[in-house]
């Protein structure tokens, strides 16, 4: 009995390894991205090998999860979606009630490791929206839009309250993209955007003072040279001094001399820009664009509405990471905690991103058969 279980497990493992059901172009692009990330980390982290090895181990874990997820058919994801959504929302409530962590209470201590439920939401959110829209008539009407709005607002509100504005933004963007891809009428989008614009003063009212400060600081970095203004000024100096061709690998002075704070996490892209210049930036952005494009391609080929919306939303939310982090480093957007995917040091976000790509691989493997 045990033997058969073990044999079946080994057979499963062998199948995963020998015949991976992955989309090769996407896999290669991700691999390239991870390599670029490790290289930048090596330089930004002052040649601290343990930092690089730790990150590589997370990438390896993420890779394994991609292989595992790619074997799970999308229908299984779909059936589990409501439970996953409810589960991760409950976890967010638990964190809100008894969370720990300094300043921002977003961690849940599981004893062996600390776990961030909002990270889970980045994936379950587009799943839930896709699940809801899947059996419905598309393009969605106001009623469905309202329901989707509520599905997005509840977890996003809980995350924003932690307070983790960056993740709240990513989560709601993922949900919104699914809605956009479902074909929500342009005039409705326009009306909604206008309404959101009208809500900005209200949102300002409910923001934490430090969040307001960040936005004000972005508009005038010199007003806070000890805090966030310092980040922005130093980051821009790093980027600008890189020039077209960059100072060369390991030649960035801004981070080396510790002028640049958080230079292995949120501001690592500044180190990259300083060392590889505009050429490096463009190359990396092209790689990101390719990955997003490939995701949308996989989405278009998908078998059903659920898979389509999910794959598309995952791909498009990848763009939000790149845009928000890249904009923040270049002083275009306020300082929020959004990492540069696969480049920034940090465990949970890298792993959860790769799990998302695992779902994409599964959707690709179960794509529509062309007639």
């Amino acid at each position, binding site marked *: 009995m045990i033997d058969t279980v073990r044999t079946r497990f080994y057979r499963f493992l062998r199948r995963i390894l020998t015949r991976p059901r992955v989309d090769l172009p996407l896999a290669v692009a991700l691999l390239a991205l991870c390599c670029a990330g490790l290289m930048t980390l090596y330089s930004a982290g002052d040649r601290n090998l343990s930092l690089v090895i730790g990150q590589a181990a997370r990438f390896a874990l993420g890779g394994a999860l991609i292989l595992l997820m790619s074997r799970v058919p999308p229908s299984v994801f779909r059936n589990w979606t409501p439970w996953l959504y409810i589960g991760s929302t409950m976890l967010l409530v638990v964190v809100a009630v008894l969370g720990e962590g300094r300043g921002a209470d977003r961690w849940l201590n599981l004893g062996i490791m600390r776990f961030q439920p909002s990270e889970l939401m980045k994936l379950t959110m587009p799943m839930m929206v896709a699940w809801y829209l899947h059996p419905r008539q598309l393009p969605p009407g106001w009623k469905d839009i309202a329901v989707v709005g509520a599905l997005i607002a509840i977890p996003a509100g809980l995350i924003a309250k932690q307070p983790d504005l960056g993740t709240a933004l990513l989560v709601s963007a993922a949900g919104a993209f699914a809605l956009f891809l*479902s074909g929500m009428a342009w005039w409705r989008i326009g009306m909604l955007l206008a309404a959101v614009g009208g809500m900005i003063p209200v949102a300002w009212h409910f923001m934490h003072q430090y969040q307001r400060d960040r936005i004000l600081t972005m508009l005038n970095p010199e007003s806070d040279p000890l805090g966030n203004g310092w980040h922005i000024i130093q980051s821009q100096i790093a980027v*600008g001094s890189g020039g077209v061709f960059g100072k060369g690998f390991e030649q960035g002075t801004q981070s080396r001399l510790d002028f640049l704070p958080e230079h292995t996490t949120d501001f690592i892209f500044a180190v990259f820009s300083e060392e590889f210049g505009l050429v490096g930036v463009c190359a990396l952005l092209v790689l990101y664009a390719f990955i997003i494009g490939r995701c949308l391609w996989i989405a278009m080929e998908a078998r059903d509405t659920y898979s389509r919306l999910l794959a*598309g939303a995952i791909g498009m939310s990848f763009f939000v990471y790149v845009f928000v982090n890249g904009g923040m480093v270049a002083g275009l957007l306020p300082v929020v905690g959004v990492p540069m995917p696969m480049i920034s040091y940090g465990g949970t976000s890298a792993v959860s991103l790769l799990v998302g790509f695992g779902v994409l691989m599964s959707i690709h493997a179960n794509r529509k058969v062309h007639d």
Partner: protein
Amino acid sequence: MAKLIRRRAFKDTRGEQELFRRRALTGFALILLGLGALVGRYVFLQVLHHDEFATRSVNNSVKPRAIPPARGLIYDRNGVLLADNVPAFRLEVVPEQVSHMEAMLAELAKVVPLDQDDLDAFRKQLKQTRRFDSVPLKMRLTEDDIARFAVNRWRFPGVDVVPYLTRQYPLGPLFANVVGYVSRIDADDLDRLDPEIYKGTTHIGRTGLERTYEDILHGKPGYELDEVSADGRIQRVLKIDPPVPGKNLYLSIDARVQKATQEAFEGRPGAAVAIDPRNGQVLAMVSVPSFDPNLFVNGISLTDYTALTSAADKPLIDRALKGVYPPGSTVKPFIGLAGLEYGVRTPQDTVVSTGVFYIPGQARGYRDDVRGGVGTVNLYRAIEDSVNTYFYKLSLDLGIDRLSEFLGSYGFGRPTGVDLPGEVSGILPSREWKAKHMKPASWFPGETVITGIGQGYWLVTPMQLAHAIATFAGHGVPYAPRVVMATADVGAKPAPLANPPTGPSVIKNIKDWQAVNDGMQLVIYGSDPFSTGKGVKLGEGFPYRIAGKSGTAERFSRTSDAYNENRNTAYLAARHRAWFEAFTPAEDPRIAVAVVLEAGAWGAKDAGPIARKMLDIWLTTQSGTVPADHPLQEMEPTPSSSTSPNAPEDTPQGDMPASDTSSPENSTP
């Protein structure tokens, strides 16, 4: 249902797919646009403004430096300085300019002595600051240190002597328990504090007001932009954003009252608290013995610390807030008031004191002060003579539930809410309390009886008793005691802090208040042969009427219920705790005090004079009549004949054998 089917029927898979394809393509186009905008921004920074940023990168020698705010000063109510900032020097290290930190520290230790605490705090802070921010290494350098370092300075790039302000407490031990002290920010503090606000700050309020009012005292750091040379020395200050200094505090305590109170103890361990019943302002708060808070500011030496912690009379403990003592007879006015307010007694109702009181149906006797009793007493005489029997019977009639509810409304059994840290709640006996903390958990009538004379489980802090008597004196209007009366921005006038009553008056009928008040005045002025305050003449020569009550609580449970014939003062002092509570003017009270003397033989005779001295000095601080000088008569120890009716002191009331509380009694009403 039909609607649902219609919806299903309309689901156009192929159309949806086409719609999705269009949306995905549009989305991708928008994404490319967004990435294009990003590239535009990078072109702007890296191509168009490259020269400018490249220059700034090369000359990145402008560094911000935090300027810590000056800590707010602390004054007494008349502006006497209690906590000051004085200039001193410390060693600071800029990490990025030190190539081999450990080697440098080892070398530096040969020049300037560094102890382990300095090094631990330094290493911890080193990890949490940016490498160009300087980290303090050793505080309060001596002239010698500075001179020796100055000679060797060239050997230690990145290490510098920096002037700063350090805390000093000019009155030292007198306010140690109130003002508290600041001390070095340690590794645990660093985990907790907001690094933005504590940038450049080295000390934090550790105890007392320094701790409670940390946020107000601290202020907000400023910064300056310095142009630094290659070796990190400041060449030029480009810009200064000055820090916002912390607010100054004004205490309601008068340093003169505080000092006179402390001196009245003559070094004997104890505590005293005076409160203005009209607003809850603390007028004096003394704990004897005390310690010098200045020792703690820059790290106390191990020898000093051991001396303080191992001293038998525990000078570090603030007895006013953390000392718990059985209240003894000081609670009798409150018990009497409970009887009136619940309608169980009128002031004229009498009880016969025969010297011993029995719970109906029980053989155990609860003794009175005076062998043979004092005869028939009403409320006034019961308070004046501190007649146990009256209160035994009254508390039995009231029952423990009404008793503890009533006493709870005067703040017994919970912190008073004074604006100082570490206050303990004491114990107010009740069924619930016993069920939670004791075995057996059930309540016995004998425990109700002794609660009536402030013995048994009951424990109070001096602050609690002062709060209770002040609440009574203030016609029942409860205020949380407040030590800080006002705060002031630097250069501005003190702004009073509001302290509204915590609730409506707890007195139901002003006549009850008057009756108990009259009884308490008889304690001071009564002529009854058994009057507790008679021989002491506590009211003599004072321009206002005083109301008071003594208390003499037993430190140990008695092992037998025989009268103790030993009247030797020293012997009793070792066994008793002497209490005195008082307020004046009796009809319109402006000050209420509670005094405990740990080794006092008798409440009225030993603690009473301390209370009187407090009232005397308080009077001199009030505008208006100042009374003529009137030295207090020191009483000779009473001859050991306890039957003498001349001066029966307020006798201890721990009349219960130790075993009593654990013996179940069967006649629970």
